[in-house]
């Protein structure tokens, strides 16, 4: 294999991995704080992508590409991303409030089954609303490319990687420096103690869902820019893979989500290139199983002892 092809795969892997990382962040934050696997997270991605798709179509039609070239290029994408973030944030908070909050004290099995129910609900509601026939998503940054030496990199890939880096930095700042971020960390350590310190646990958990869902919207837009076919089940497989990434990196850890996402993206691209496209998913899941066996808490995770 020559170096150029290798680099090309690597960049594509990084790009896919960035998307996984952004989705994994949502999983990992929610898992860290609410101690639940939000199975519906992947479907929030799908909703975000649909909202962006329709907004872009609507807004795009308002401008004439001949006379208002800049506005026609920027406005639909901007409006689409913003609106989908808003809708997903609201959706995330509503889901949490209606389905998960009543189960705060319930066994994790019950919460997980509920989350699966929510995931199914979103998929089937989307199917009724928007039909199951695929929509073809046009990349939010157009289909341009840049030439970096001998390599050709598309705008979508660039934007994806940049978005991932920005989000990661912003989140690290948020959790470490802001009051809300500190509250989140406190709640994830010990809900009871945090409550005694005057932290509003319910609001903190809602906030986590809001942030996770807003990130899911961004991930949805980026995902569909890279893989343009949009159906009601678009989000479920990337969602599960991103959860794999979160577990891979160590669930509850933000740098872990980044590391896990990037590694998983690279593994998937290389597996489909050198092993078989049909088996790439199987390879990704195989990696998950091996990781959980060797390091049950993931690469950067901490093992927690049960108190006896």
């Amino acid at each position, binding site marked *: 294999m020559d170096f150029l092809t290798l680099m090309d795969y690597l960049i594509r892997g990084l790009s896919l991995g960035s998307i996984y990382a952004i989705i994994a962040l949502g999983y990992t934050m929610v898992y860290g704080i609410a101690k639940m696997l939000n199975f519906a997270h992947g479907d929030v991605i799908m909703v975000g992508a649909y909202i962006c798709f329709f907004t872009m179509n609507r807004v795009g039609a308002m401008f004439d590409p001949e006379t208002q070239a800049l506005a026609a290029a920027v406005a639909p994408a901007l409006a689409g991303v913003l609106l989908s973030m808003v809708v997903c944030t609201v959706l995330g908070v509503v889901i949490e409030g209606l389905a998960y909050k009543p189960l705060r004290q319930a066994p994790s099995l019950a919460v997980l089954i509920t989350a*699966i129910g929510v995931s199914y609900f979103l998929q089937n509601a989307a199917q009724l609303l928007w039909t199951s026939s695929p929509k073809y998503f046009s990349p939010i940054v157009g289909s341009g490319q840049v030439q970096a030496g001998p390599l050709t990199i598309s705008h979508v890939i660039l934007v994806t990687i940049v978005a991932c880096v920005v989000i990661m930095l912003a989140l690290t700042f948020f959790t470490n420096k802001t009051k809300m971020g500190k509250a989140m960390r406190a709640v994830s350590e010990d809900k009871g103690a945090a409550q005694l310190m005057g932290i509003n646990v319910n609001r903190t958990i809602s906030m986590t869902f809001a942030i996770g869902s807003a990130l899911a919207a961004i991930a949805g837009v980026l995902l569909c820019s890279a893989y343009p076919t949009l159906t009601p089940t678009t989000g479920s497989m990337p969602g599960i893979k991103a959860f794999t990434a979160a577990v891979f990196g160590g669930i509850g850890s933000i740098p872990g989500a980044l590391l896990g996402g990037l590694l998983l993206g690279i593994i998937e691209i290389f597996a489909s290139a050198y092993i078989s496209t049909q088996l790439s998913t199987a390879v990704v899941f195989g990696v*998950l199983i091996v990781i959980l066996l060797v390091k049950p808490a993931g690469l950067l995770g901490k093992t927690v002892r049960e108190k006896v």
Partner: protein
Amino acid sequence: MTSLKTMKKSTRTSFLTYAMVVVAFVIVQSLRVFKDGGVGAVLEGQLIPICAYITVALALNLVVGVSGELSLGHAGFMSIGAFMGCAMASALQDSVTLAPLRLAISMIFGAVLAGLFGFLIGIPVLRLNGDYLAIVTLAFGEIIKSIITNVYLGVDKDGLQFSFLTDRNQLAEGGIALIKGPMGVNNSARISTFVAGFILVMITLIVVFNLVNSRAGRAIMAARDNRIAAESVGISVTKYKMMAFVTSAALAGAAGTLYGCSQVTFTATKFDFNTSILILVFVVLGGLGNMWGTVIAAAALTILPEALREFADYRMLVYAIVLILVMLATNNPTIQSGLSRLIQRLKAGKGGEEQ
């Protein structure tokens, strides 16, 4: 009925469940034999799938309800049973001419292979707990699906031929392609019968009830209720979780063979994540650990969508809502106490009317 009342509660439950299944079987079977048009074309076509789904739902309830671990990959075991069992049935076409015997051998073969897979998967999976275990079973379900989709298996006079990813089998004349990758399986004969399905359901019920009410079953439930306490009284938790998991996988495999051999053709995508969820819905609606509820839920939810085809679009949506509502109703303390108060009031109201 006095003797029923004096029985131990667990014995009574199992007895009533057996009775319910036998009565249902007798009614359906006599309709099929004595009435013109039988039970109707729609139901007739669903009889064997109903038995298969009841079996696999009971098997899953053994894992989720009794052993307390969530498996999201049970369709995978069904898939192994369906493909391997049907391959066996086709391969034995000439050597075993008696169809019920051929079906029995195929089912046992499918069950053993699925059980073996359950064991291999259980080694890594059962070391994990909670959500991790669920996600890994999901992963295994997907892995099984992608592997079977790429398997080509054929038999001719020189023996078995196997290839992976692309079909490189060169079958001699008269050879049969047993599994054809993404094209799945074409059955030469549909040997599954309703009677066989009924027998499988009964065997499954007997296995599940007798297992639960025995030393091994108590150990499985002890491991579910309190892992550390179970270990402290000398119960090897992994061993008993494995026992439940493998038994469940084997039963799901047998159900897969039953299902597979009732179809003209099927592919690996039939047994995907959605099927695993569907089975889980049967179990949750029937009640975790509640076997008669599972039987009713599996039967009703397999017939209903066929009977209400015009609402097919809303079916999964309704399933999702029901799943969420059942979970909320059974696990939220506020809703629970509200419900029990409502029931009490209804009872009191009834009593008042009688007086």
